[in-house]
Each structure stands twice: as structure tokens, then as C-alpha cells.
């Protein structure tokens, strides 16, 4: 809350409440702690007359999953890490890659593209300020979304008739594949697979490894579903305004570096996760490019729907979505299907 009192060594203490709906067992929160909190603490202590006193509220103890954006807006925490998968309706632009399946599953490339996009289009970050009473500090990316199944899947045909558990907006990735979507929260995933409520799940890979999902769904399909901008780090506007200039500068600079740190960390975590799949008795299968093309073709043109949604919300939807694909192409990633990125069909 930016309230300051004088602490030891003549340094003024600034109390900052930081939180997220996710706990520190998730790599993006680990990165937040190991990089962001750590560096902000050190730099503020070394470079200014202040010291940060953190009150940590991870794991939904103050802002629960799906209510983080509003939690920061309302000042329940000073700094919040919003898990963006639940914000498709409030932050459609920030969440656009969720509606662009099979675009790219390399955390490092996506991070690089996101950085370029955010530089080119300030609306990605100013939206927090304009609509949600908070100031953008940083963004992180997900690990590749995993597809774990109880029987081996090699092609689009194999998923026909399957019940597939996924949360929220990801359900769109299987519409048209012949599979049925089952709304599943991460916590129910293990039991649902074990008891055949569903035969496959689409969730962030590392979370599935944490939950030992390969024990009950041993087949991991590298389907190239996506790496997405996954979590944003923002600070409440009133808190921000109350902070000393030099502390603001440090928050901005450290926040800027979060993406690189987090993407590298996620990337290394993912490599280990894949070897853990095998250790837990699972099998890693890669969906061939031809099958990816078929899968993408089976979907309705959800990219075009996205463009329309963004344009209607007052964003430069056609331009921005097209630009994302172009930036990927500049890095050698071809688009899977000729989505209609213009507004009209």
C-alpha cells in the first residue's frame, strides 16, 4: 500500500502486498519470486533510501484465480500476477493468442514476438491503466499446452469421440475435431482421467506433471497447441502513484526483464517435464505437421471470430493479429492455415 515508516539503518520501509491466484509451485510464480521480488528488493535496498517489506499472498489467499485483475484494480494487493486464461472477456487483446491455436509452441520465440508486439502496440499495456486502474509492469508466457491422453493419439482421427477436459477458452481448440469438451478445472484433472470422465486433457504441461497426470494419462502429445502470453504483472494505480520515483523506475526496469527470465526458465522446466513424462512411465508423441494442418482445418475460423471481436471492442484487431503471424514468420514459423485475418468473411 506504499505506506512508509522508518525502519532500521535509516531506510524507510515500504510495505508491498503481492499476490496471485496461483501458488509458488507454478513456474511463472517461481520466476516472479526468484527474479522479480528478489531483484526489486535488492535494487531498492542498494540504490535508494527505501526498503521493501513484502506481504506475500500467493495461492489465492487474497486474490483468487479469475479475480486477480479486479483484485489489483480494487487494491486488494498492491502488485498482482493475473493468470490471463480467465480474462478473455476483460482483456480480449492481451488474450488473443488463446484464439490462435497451432501458432507457435516455443516459449523463447513467443517471448521474443510478444516483446516486439508490445513495443509496436502500446494498447497491450495501456489497457490496464485505461480500464482497470492498474499499471503494467511485465508479462510472462506459458509453457507449451500439453495434451495428455489415456490412449495413444497420433492423428486427428484418434480424438474423434473422445471426451477432452479443458478449462474455459481452450475448449475452442477442439471444436470441430469430433471430440467433446468437458469443462474441467486443473484440480479435477487427475481424477477425471482416472475415472474416465474424460480421456484426455489440455492444460499447461508443467501443472499436469505437478499433479502426476502421466500416471493416469501416460500419452503426451506435442500437438503444437500453443505457448501463450499467460500471466501479467501489474501494480495498483494508487499504490503506483504513491511510490517514490526511484522505486517506480526499479519496478519498471525489473518488470521489463521478467519476460526474458521467465521464458528461459519455462523453457528449461519444459525440457525437464518431458523427461519426467517418460520417467513416470509415459510416452511423448509428436503430432505430425500434416496432422496439425488437418486439425487446424477442422476448426471453425476462430481467428476470424477473434478479429471481429477485437475490432468490435475498439482495437485494431485485423492489423494486430496479422502482425503476430508476420512476426512469427520473420522468425521462421509458418502459419498453419490461411485464417481470415480481415474483418469480413
Amino acid at each position, binding site marked *: 500500500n506504499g505506506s512508509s515508516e522508518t525502519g532500521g539503518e535509516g531506510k524507510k520501509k515500504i510495505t508491498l502486498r503481492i499476490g496471485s491466484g496461483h501458488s509458488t509451485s507454478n513456474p511463472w510464480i517461481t520466476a516472479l519470486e526468484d527474479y522479480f521480488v528478489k531483484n526489486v528488493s535488492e535494487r531498492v535496498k542498494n540504490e535508494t533510501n527505501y526498503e521493501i517489506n513484502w506481504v506475500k499472498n500467493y495461492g489465492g489467499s487474497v486474490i483468487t484465480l*479469475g*479475480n486477480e485483475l479486479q483484485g489489483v484494480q*480494487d487494491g*486488494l494487493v498492491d502488485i498482482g500476477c493475473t493468470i490471463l486464461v480467465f480474462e478473455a472477456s476483460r482483456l480480449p487483446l492481451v488474450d488473443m493468442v488463446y484464439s490462435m491455436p497451432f501458432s507457435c509452441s516455443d516459449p523463447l520465440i513467443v517471448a521474443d514476438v510478444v516483446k516486439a508486439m508490445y513495443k509496436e502496440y502500446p494498447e497491450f499495456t495501456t489497457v490496464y491503466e485505461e480500464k482497470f486502474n492498474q499499471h503494467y509492469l511485465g508479462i510472462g508466457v506459458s509453457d507449451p499446452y500439453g495434451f495428455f491422453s489415456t490412449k495413444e493419439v497420433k492423428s486427428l482421427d484418434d480424438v474423434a469421440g473422445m471426451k477432452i477436459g479443458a478449462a474455459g477458452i481452450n475448449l475452442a481448440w477442439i471444436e470441430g475435431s469430433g471430440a467433446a469438451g468437458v469443462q474441467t478445472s486443473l484440480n479435477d484433472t487427475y*481424477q477425471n482421467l482416472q475415472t474416465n470422465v474424460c480421456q484426455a486433457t489440455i492444460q499447461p504441461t508443467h501443472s499436469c506433471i505437478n499433479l502426476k497426470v502421466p500416471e493416469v494419462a501416460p500419452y503426451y502429445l506435442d500437438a503444437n497447441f500453443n505457448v501463450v502470453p499467460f500471466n501479467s504483472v501489474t501494480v495498483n494505480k494508487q499504490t503506483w502513484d504513491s511510490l517514490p520515483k526511484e522505486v517506480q523506475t526499479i519496478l519498471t526496469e525489473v518488470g521489463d526483464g521478467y519476460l526474458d527470465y521467465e521464458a528461459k526458465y519455462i523453457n528449461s522446466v519444459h525440457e525437464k517435464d518431458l523427461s519426467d513424462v517418460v520417467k513416470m512411465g509415459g510416452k511423448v508423441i509428436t503430432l505430425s505437421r500434416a496432422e496439425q494442418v488437418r486439425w487446424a482445418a477442422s476448426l471453425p475460423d476462430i481467428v476470424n471470430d477473434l478479429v471481429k471481436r477485437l475490432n468490435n471492442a475498439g482495437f485494431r484487431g485485423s492489423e494486430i493479429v496479422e502482425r503476430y503471424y508476420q512476426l512469427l514468420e520473420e522468425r521462421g514459423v509458418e502459419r498453419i492455415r490461411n485464417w481470415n485475418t480481415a474483418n469480413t468473411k
Partner: protein
Amino acid sequence: MSPIVIAVFSLALLLILIFSGVHLNISLMITSFATVLLFTGRINVAMNVLSQSAWGSVRQYMFGVIPLFVLMGMLANLSGASSDLYDAAALMLKKVRGGVGIATVIANAIFAAITGVTVASAAIFTKIALPQMNRLKYEKKFSLGTIAGSAILGMLIPPSLLMIVYGSQADVSIGKLFVAAIVPGLIMTFAFILVIAVVGKVKPEYIPVVEELSEFEKENYWKIVLKPWPIIMLILVTLGGIWGGFFTPTEAGGIGAFGAFVLVLFKKGFNREEIWETLLSAGATSGSVLILLISASTYSKTLSMCGIINSISFFVEGLTIPPLGIILIFMFILMVLGCILDSTSILLLTTPLMCPIVQDLGYDMVWFGIIMIIAIETGMVTPPFGMNVFTVKSSLQGIEGYEGTTVNDIFKGSTWYLIAIIAVDLLLVLVPVLVTYLPNNM
């Protein structure tokens, strides 16, 4: 201001409000607002803690279990299941000393498997079983205590509103809690039966008359014994479905309520008025529980935000007491609170403070939930405020032979059962595997 000062202020304000008789939900919200205002100095933030909880804390699929299990229990009762269960058990146990009392316990235990609240059982069985015990000249206090005590099974045998509340507050799977409670629930049922058997032996004058079967009962034996089969089926489908993983607790609630509805239709036909009344009262009960969950979430957010939980954990873990000692102290605190507060309130007030500590100590949170709920349930039969005892008292109207009964008589008669509850809780504290075996092998 330091978290400790704020913690003291916050708890003091909360207790003053609660004991002054301000409704729990309002006490929690006002305390949260004042505490956050004091800590942050920002009135907007303090206000937003309330709106965030109102919007975010119960708007989840999981909370569908609350109205559904409440409705299921009420519909099952409307169908006459409780008296069918009692009749069947009483007939089978007729020739046993204390048979009618044991039948009350068993009927309570089975009915508990379909109801999420306990007060209803206390009211129903006062009407059904008490006249029978009176006819057989059971000692009055003992028979009253039997009813007040055995009604506790309603909350200890799944489904249980307390387990739902605990699961949501401590972030523990409700399905696992339900499964974990099966063995403790059976042990508790057995302990209650043991109480009656022992009393029958030690104080035969408490249970003087044992009857033979009448001609009518001999002729209709199997008809009466098998009459509750539909309700048993319903229990098997709902609880078995959760256990076997065919559906989530919310789905089990939906199916169970629907099944109970069908049962009512078959047994009593479509009585629009009765069904509507049942639906209305299920709605009201759900509303009052949901607002408690919202206000409790306000309070637990407040405790985290202001660093109060960290300070208290730090303090407790700094004490040189072995972990088991801390658990026992917690159990004791819960039982003391049980004397003056109702079960849901205690659970809501203590989970945010106790659970982080117990988790840090490395204990199983499913296990802790169960032993916590049992400790809290002692409060249903301890004076001065004992919900089951009050319910029995208010249901006594019009029952012959109990005109001069005081609340204290019922408290006294419940003592036997209170001892049994405490003994079972201690057993589960010392032998955790009794709780954890089933959920860990789901």
C-alpha cells in the same frame, strides 16, 4: 501498524460484535472492513474486500453442492425415508436391550448419508423415536440424550455441510473429505451403539423393558425391514458415484436431489404445496450458508492481506510444543468455542488461522478437517449453547411424558454421547490412518 496490533484489534472487534448478538455475516464484514482500513489507510481498498468476496467467493461450480445436498436431504425426509429407516431398524433390534435406542442411532447414521445438516435429524427423531422410548420406560434424560447425540451423525457422515465449508476454506477436495469421513462416521456410529449397550449393562434400570415381536410385526417382518430400499439405493448411487469417481460432489448432489424428488413422487404423489415448501426452505437454508461463506472469505482475505496469518503462524510455531501438542490445543480450543458458538461459525472463524499452521507442520489437511469437524460437533450437545439440544427441546411440544423437561436435562442426558465423541476424536488424532486410508486409495 504492526500485524500483531492489528490482529489483536481485529479479533477483539470480531468477538465483541459476535457476542453482542450482531449477525455473523455482518460481524465478519464490518470487522474486515475496519481492519483493512486500519492497515492500508485506504477506504476504497477496505470496501473492495467486501465486493470482491461477494462476487468471487461462491460463484463456483463446486458450491452447487450446497443447495443440492440441502434439497436432497429435505426431499428424502419429505418422502418419509427417516421413519421408514427407523421402523426397519427398530423391528430388527426389537429383542435387544436398548434396541429402540440403537435403532435411533442406526437410522440416524443411514439418514445422515443423505442429509448435509444435522438439526433436521434431531427434530425428526424426537417425533419418531422418543414416544417409543417412553413406552419402554427408558430413563428420560438418557432417551433425550440419545436423540440429541445421535443426530450429530448428520454432519459426520457424508454429505456434510461442514465438510463442504471446510473444503472450500482450506482448499481441500470435498470428494476426498466425503470419502475420508466414512470410516470415522462408522466408528462414531459404533461408539454410540456401544454407549447404549454399556448403559443397558451397567444401569439396567435406564432401559427396563425389552419387548417381543407382535403378530403383526411377525407377519410383515420383511415388508417393514425392506421398506427403506429406495433410499438405500439413492445413497449408494450418490456416495458410491463420488467414491467411484463417476461424478463430482456437485453432480452427485444434482443426481441425488433429483432421485429424492422422484422418490417423493412415487411414495407420496405430486403434492404441489409440500414440494414447493421444501424447495423454499432449501433455498433459504442455502442462502444463509452462502452468505456466511462470502463473509468468511472476506475475513480470511483480510487476515492474509494484513499479514496477520503469518504473524500468528510465526508465533505458534515459535512455541516449544511438539506438533501433536499444537493439534491437541487446537482441538481443545474448538471444543471450548463449541460451548458458545454454532458449528459453521467456528469452522469459518478458525480454518484461516489454524490450517496454514497445520499445513506447515506437515499434517494431512483432509485428516485435520475431519478431526476438526468432530471436535466442533461436540458443541452441538455442550451447554450453554447446544444446537441439537435446543432442537430436541423445541420439538418436544405435544409429546406425552416430557412436559417438564428442561434444556439442562437434555444436556445431562447427552453427556454419555459427548464422552464417546471426544474419545473417537482422540482415537482419530492418534491413529490418522483411520481417516487417511480411504481418500489416499481413491
